[in-house]
């Protein structure tokens, strides 16, 4: 509810996120004048700190994989 500690915290996080959106959008339009560049703004994750977002939604670990080469392509044809 409005005025609660949680509300104040989330509102503060939201304001910081909005500032970040502006920086990201400015960077894309000012530094690179590229066509179709991504737009950043308010969505369902905007009241979430980057740390919480990362911990909640980014749950994949990476594994080092071999580079695909022509050899990999031929290898599958071997008996």
């Amino acid at each position, binding site marked *: 509810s409005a005025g609660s500690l949680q509300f104040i915290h989330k509102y503060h996080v939201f304001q910081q*996120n909005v500032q*970040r*959106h502006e920086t*990201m959008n400015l*960077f*894309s339009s000012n530094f*690179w004048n*590229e*066509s*179709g*560049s*991504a*737009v*950043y*703004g308010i*969505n*369902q*994750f*905007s009241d*979430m700190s*980057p740390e919480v*977002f*990362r*911990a*909640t*939604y*980014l*749950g*994949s*670990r*990476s*594994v080092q*994989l*071999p*580079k*695909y080469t022509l050899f*990999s392509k031929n290898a599958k044809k071997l008996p």
Partner: protein
Amino acid sequence: LPPKFDWRDKNVVTPVRNQESCGGCWAFSVVESIESSCAIKGRQLELLSAQEVIDCSYRDAGCKGGSPINALIWLNQSKAKLVKESVYPFNAKTGLCRYFSRSALGVSITGFKAYSFRYNEDVMMEKLLEWGPLVAVVDAVSWQDYLGGIIQHHCSQGQSNHAVVITGYDATGDTPYWIVRNSWGTKWGVDGYVYIKMGKNVCGIADSVAVAFV
């Protein structure tokens, strides 16, 4: 190669899902790849259980995270039958693994491939057409704020943290891009999808790529 291609146009891609507050993107990406592989092989397109992979892939940590490659290794070694979503529905929590008998209706994979296509995205285009939708592990930190358009910056390589599925590409415009399916619901991005610039390994899109075969 065609200048534009999307497996969605072939009706072999299931609707975008929502992983909610469960860090199970790794399981969703693998299951979505298998769903498409089945449909490409001529079977009916149907939702398979991501919850089964979340609960049962013992090399991973369920909703606390995992790796698509580990899930594929488990599916391939165990030949576990992936049942329908309706049989083993998603509940956004890691639970006890439910086992199904070998006679149960479901899909088991016959194998998988996993490679890095870094600096080789042209070949990756070819493989997308040959193999079907591709699982990719990317850096998605900046995706928290994404609304639409083609991601070309604010994304790093070599720091992958999120698993997605590449369903197509579009190289007809000034900025060629990959069409990438996410699992954060349809309200996020472009109806649940995100576009990533091709050719520069943006977000590490080509670093860790896999596909399952049925």
